[in-house]
């Protein structure tokens, strides 16, 4: 397997506080990894640092073998979908939210058809009726799945998921698990949900910004 992401002695801090300290791990293509630990242990910081949203104070991050710089960051963002606990949909209706990225130069000309929209929604246990709904009036779980659907429509291969099943019922969770079981998709997630953790192939345990344990998950 080829390494997609490598964290090498990564340290991130804010004034007066170290959030990540000397964190090192490698994530290979197709792996489904989960970052576990108490609140404030630095799990979400790992995802944000990878996306360039927080600066490194030490160490290095490699994406597909290349050190993080402006070009590598563009590549990361091109391949990656980030879905937070409360995703921002950024448009009035669900349909507009799904089509939003296709207004940008990077995806112009790849606008999905109505059938493709409905297929992706069906994969995530969402009805096609949701397309015309006001995006501010849908539930948190629906918002998370719409954000996931947007990543799938963009053909992203790396998914950074922050508590993505926190607002989902069992049926919806199963649908999300099924989607991410695809070998072509690589997942680096943050979760407290035991069901999600059980579905992952790798568990990275963080405590106070340090990586305590990096283990393969037998149940996956």
């Amino acid at each position, binding site marked *: 397997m080829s390494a997609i992401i490598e964290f090498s002695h990564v340290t991130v801090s804010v004034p007066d506080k170290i959030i990540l300290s000397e964190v090192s791990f490698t994530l290979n293509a197709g792996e489904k990894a989960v970052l576990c630990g108490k609140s404030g242990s630095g799990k979400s910081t790992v995802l944000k640092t990878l996306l360039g949203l927080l600066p490194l104070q030490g160490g290095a991050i490699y994406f597909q073998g290349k050190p993080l710089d402006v070009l590598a960051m563009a590549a990361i963002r091109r391949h990656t979908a980030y879905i937070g606990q409360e995703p921002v949909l950024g448009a009035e209706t669900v349909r507009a939210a799904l089509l939003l990225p296709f207004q*940008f130069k990077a995806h112009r000309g790849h606008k999905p058809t109505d059938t493709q929209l409905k297929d992706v929604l069906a994969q995530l246990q969402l009805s096609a009726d949701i397309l015309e709904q006001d995006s501010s009036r849908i539930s948190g779980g629906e918002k998370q799945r719409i954000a996931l659907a947007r990543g799938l429509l963009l053909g992203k291969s790396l998914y950074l998921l922050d508590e993505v099943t926190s607002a989902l019922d069992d049926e919806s969770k199963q649908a999300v698990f099924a989607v991410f079981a695809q070998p072509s998709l690589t997942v680096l997630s943050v979760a407290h949900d035991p069901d999600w953790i059980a579905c992952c192939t790798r568990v990275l345990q963080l405590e106070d910004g340090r990586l305590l344990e990096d283990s393969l998950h037998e149940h996956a």
Partner: protein
Amino acid sequence: MNTLDIAPPQMAVLYGLCLLPWLALWLIGLRLSRDILIGIVRMSLQLALVGFYLKTLFSLDDPWLNALWIFVMLVVADLSILQRAGLKARFFALSTLVAITFSTLFATFYLVVLVIQPEYFYDARYLVPLAGMVLGNCQQGNVIALERFYSALRSNELEYQTFLLLGATRWEAARPYYRIAVQAAISPTLANMATMGLVSLPGMMTGQILGGSEPWLAVKYQIAIMIGIFASTTLACIINLKLSMRMAFNAYDVLRREVFAKG
């Protein structure tokens, strides 16, 4: 028609007009004596200085001195815009100076050279007051534009970052806030133009009429200055925000916290 002078005793009577509002404020429990006094003294001293330097500029009428004075006005406006917008001058002083200099000079020279056409274009009597009026309004617009743009980016940072992660360029991700900021900045000028003459008589026109001009001539100058203000404010805001973005983000297009004057 000669304008009647206001003699020193009448000037003293003029300040007496403030006594009644001061008393009314005091009676309703607002103790603003200090603020009122500072306001009146500052206004009087600043205008006395303006009178002194305008008289000097007009009498010398030297193109380099006129240019130097306009440059001083631009620098003061530049720093004042950034201070009022809550942004640090070391990041934005150059971009703001470039934007307001270009737009103020463009609008002022357009008015002087193509519209008013004095004997020589650097005539201080036209150049300095027109540049001052254009710049004064341009300054208000740029404060609004910068403040709105960066506060919108800050309060919608998650949305901005979502756009970036969905493939938007920095410009594509910031454009919604950019449009809102430019619209907010030019709205007062547009509203002012739409109600001009109906709601109030503009200051420049009133000044010209009191100064002895024919009302029709004053009206034409007022139209000229309003169009100059609209053009310079709009251009300055559009250019300023665009240029400022070069300093406001890091290499990964994340908004830099250190550009804000407070936290």
